[in-house]
């Protein structure tokens, strides 16, 4: 039969073997390394010169960095004892289990998703692992030689000392005393050799381990080591700091990390088991549920878990619950009515009337005509938006039910969070804000992205719209925002915005900062999405029109999925930029991770003026997260490449 699978990518299971494309031609791997070096590093005099010059530069910088990090004068204790401060600031120690619950939920959900979504691929080749181990071993060995021992002027003239302060008789002895490092390098090299010796698989393909299993398995090493290796016990308690280098780490560190690791393994196993059990249809539904959970999780973690609202049940029973019920039932009825058969024009007019009604309350709020609960205003607006989309669900009873059900879920979720957010927290901190440090970086970045993504997409669509009014408004917004420095926008929102708000509206520092970030980031995201929109061929629009899709349907089902896919790399770039730009929070008075290192720790009496260590550590934290994001984006790109030409 010629209809068969003759054409197109080969298929493994139900997934096209896109990863195959990355396979290197075999001859390249067989070339000797000497030849490789000659060809790539010393092909001609000029390039040889560049190689040497650059090599010297790298060695000198590495030596400087190593000398700095391992110098006896370094106050790494300032970082070690202040880890909690750096990550969560003043969040109370006795409530710390809440922080771990948050980490746990994210870890579990992440591993569950990986188990459910992961495509398998061809895994991590052992050869690659071996190369990485060898490179690490070489780097360590080189580092040991490069790093000079601190030379201090003692009573007897010059004394050579090592980082731990032990006095050595000579430079050579200092080198020899770094035996632990030599040993580590040697062990790594031996392991690398052993790994390389693993024979090819029986089908001739190179030996490999599944990437995910390897990563999580490797994670076991540091986690286990907290139980056996004396990393040292450092803590800050009542302004005093404890440093006991000979002990293993504190219980409050190793227990949670071990639990996290176990949780990761368990979730991964559960995710894989489930994805093997259920059929395709159930699996795709499950994935949708997981994706939706990701959207809700940040809100739950911050507002419910970390903040632990002190719920006022009397008010809930008399005001909040009845209100939610009224909107749920009333709104459901309105939507049911709007979608009845043959409502046609009337439905559209009804939806627009509802929008006008909702908008009116907002005008009234800003003019101060009459008081109204903020969440009532928002509820009307939500209902109006649903009503505008309602005609897509008209006709069949099952579809109408789905619309009403969606409304009930939205109302419940919204009213729940509106209530929770307006309730004071039970967690008491000595500072104004609940959290600080890296937690604040994450919270602001995550909320900014969740809010600015939809906004950015809407702006991009408006800018490419056929209607000039949308185009002009969106273009003006984007160009204005892109022409103003972020810090100006932040200061505007934090300092000036509260002055404009009507008397009965308040906005917290976090909220206004997040708003500023959101509006800023949305403008850039919009430009990235627009690039994707422009990459879509005209035929896609024509085909959508020809099968009768409406403009909204065409946008949601055809245009956006393709254009977002096309713009993943710049979108991730924007995500990383936003993540790093949260460091500006320090300037507007938020205690974020940068401020911890730059001004809080250096002000502690024990660590007066110790700044550079903290800054280096903070840079490392930023780098690790940004790097993980960009790696994930590459994975995503490869995965989503599926199905495209």
């Amino acid at each position, binding site marked *: 039969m*010629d*209809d*068969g699978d*003759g*054409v*197109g*990518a080969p*298929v493994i299971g*139900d997934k*096209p073997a896109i990863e195959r494309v990355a396979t290197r031609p075999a001859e390249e791997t067989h070339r000797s390394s000497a030849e490789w070096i000659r060809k790539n590093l010393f092909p001609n005099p000029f390039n040889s010169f560049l190689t040497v010059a650059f090599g010297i530069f790298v060695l000198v910088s590495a030596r400087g960095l190593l000398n700095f990090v391992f110098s006896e004068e370094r106050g790494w204790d300032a970082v070690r004892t202040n880890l909690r401060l750096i990550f969560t600031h003043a969040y109370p120690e006795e409530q710390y289990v809440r922080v771990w619950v948050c980490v746990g939920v994210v870890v579990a959900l992440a591993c569950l998703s990986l188990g459910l979504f992961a495509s398998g691929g061809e895994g991590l080749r052992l050869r690659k692992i071996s190369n990485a181990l060898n490179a690490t071993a070489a780097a360590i060995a080189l580092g040991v030689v490069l790093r000079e021992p601190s030379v201090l002027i003692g009573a007897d003239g010059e004394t050579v000392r090592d980082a731990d302060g032990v006095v050595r008789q000579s430079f050579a002895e200092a080198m020899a005393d770094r035996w632990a490092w030599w040993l580590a390098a040697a062990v790594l090299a031996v392991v690398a050799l052993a790994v390389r010796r693993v024979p090819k698989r029986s089908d001739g393909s190179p030996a490999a381990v599944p990437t995910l299993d390897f990563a999580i398995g490797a994670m076991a090493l540091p986690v286990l080591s907290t139980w056996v290796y004396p990393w040292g016990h450092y803590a800050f308690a009542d302004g005093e700091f404890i440093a006991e280098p000979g002990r293993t780490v504190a219980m409050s560190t190793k227990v949670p990390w071990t639990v996290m690791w176990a949780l990761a393994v368990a979730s991964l196993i559960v995710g894989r088991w489930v994805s093997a059990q259920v059929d395709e249809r159930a699996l795709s539904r499950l994935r949708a549920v997981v994706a939706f959970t990701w959207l809700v999780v940040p809100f739950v973690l911050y507002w419910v878990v970390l903040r632990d609202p002190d719920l006022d049940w009397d008010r809930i029973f008399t005001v909040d619950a009845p209100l939610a019920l009224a909107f749920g039932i009333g709104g459901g009825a309105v939507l049911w009515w709007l979608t009845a058969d043959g409502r046609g024009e009337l439905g559209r007019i009804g939806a627009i009337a509802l929008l006008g009604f909702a908008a009116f309350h907002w005008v009234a709020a800003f003019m101060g005509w009459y008081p109204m609960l903020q969440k009532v205003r928002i509820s009307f607006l939500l209902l109006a938006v649903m009503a505008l989309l309602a005609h*897509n669900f*008209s*006709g*069949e009873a*099952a*579809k109408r039910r789905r619309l009403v059900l969606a409304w009930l879920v939205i109302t419940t979720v919204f009213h729940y969070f509106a209530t929770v957010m307006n309730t004071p927290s039970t967690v008491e901190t000595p500072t104004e804000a609940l959290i600080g440090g890296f937690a604040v970086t994450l919270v602001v970045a995550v909320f900014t992205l969740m809010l600015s993504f939809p906004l950015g997409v809407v702006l991009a669509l408006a800018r490419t719209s056929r209607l000039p009014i949308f185009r002009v408004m969106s273009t003006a917004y984007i160009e204005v925002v892109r022409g103003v420095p972020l810090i100006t926008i932040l200061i505007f929102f934090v300092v000036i915005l509260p002055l404009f708000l009507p008397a009965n509206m308040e906005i917290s520092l976090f909220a206004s900062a997040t708003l500023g970030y959101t509006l800023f980031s949305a403008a850039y995201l919009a430009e990235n999405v627009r690039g994707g929109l422009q990459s879509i*061929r005209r*035929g*896609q629009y*024509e*085909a*959508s*029109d*020809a*099968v*009768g*899709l*409406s403009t909204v*349907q065409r946008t949601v*089902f*055809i245009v956006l*999925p*393709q254009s977002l*896919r096309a713009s993943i790399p710049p979108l991730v770039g924007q995500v990383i930029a936003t993540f790093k730009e949260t460091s500006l929070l320090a300037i507007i008075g938020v205690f974020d991770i940068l401020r911890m290192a730059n001004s809080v720790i250096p002000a502690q009496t024990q660590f007066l003026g110790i700044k550079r260590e903290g800054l280096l550590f903070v840079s490392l934290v930023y780098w690790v997260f940004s790097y993980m994001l960009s790696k994930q984006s590459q994975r995503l790109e490869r995965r989503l490449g*599926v*199905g*495209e*030409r």
Partner: protein
Amino acid sequence: MSISDATVAVSEELAARDDMIVCRGVDKWFGDFQALSGITATIKEQEIVVVLGPSGSGKSTWIRCINRLEAHQSGQIIVDGIELTNDLRNIEKIRSEVGMVFQQFNLFPHLTVIDNITLAPIWVRRKSRPEAEEQALSLLERVGIPEQAQKFPGQLSGGQQQRVAIARALAMEPRVMLFDEPTSALDPEMIKEVLDVMEELARTGMTMMVVTHEMGFAREVADRIIFMEDGEIVEVGTPHHFFTEPAEERTKLFLSQVL
């Protein structure tokens, strides 16, 4: 040539049927350039009309005006009794009655074959998903590729993609199918599989308007052939008339070039 000449060519049996597509004096400009001038033609129910003409003669433009991918500036286009105007509701109605197959297939690359086919029935025809999928599978069966349902368009050959595109159009249960050079982007060995599907479709009584350069198809399957040049209809006639005794000089010239 006049309108009456064009209608003469319609056989009596055809003339008795209802009108499916009526064009009266359709003009279309792209800026200053007139792409269609005074197109007047009637296509009857269940009729197969092949539109021939040199490249750039306005065939695509005409066929795309019929489901409003292009808007005409003057004259009338009436499809199944509904006139195409700027009224969005009429456009919606006509689009759900008219299926279109493009030269470049224009499948949705991010959706599987089955999702390509069921998308519009679910969201425009408001079918339930199981119902739409059942229909999609039977359509895939009909175009001869039931086993490809879960693949992505990029994994199929050109001929297979074009057959999916036909299934996608048929899933909307249209009354008319428009084909704009459906085989021109295909490798020669795949042309036949697509033409076979179209022939089968013609036998089931679908009204079809086909722009093509496949003279064999025109000769065998068409009820009538319309020959266009420079945005005008030059000659209309049965395949027999057309290939044996064309009346117009321009038609003869064209035929001498392609045959």
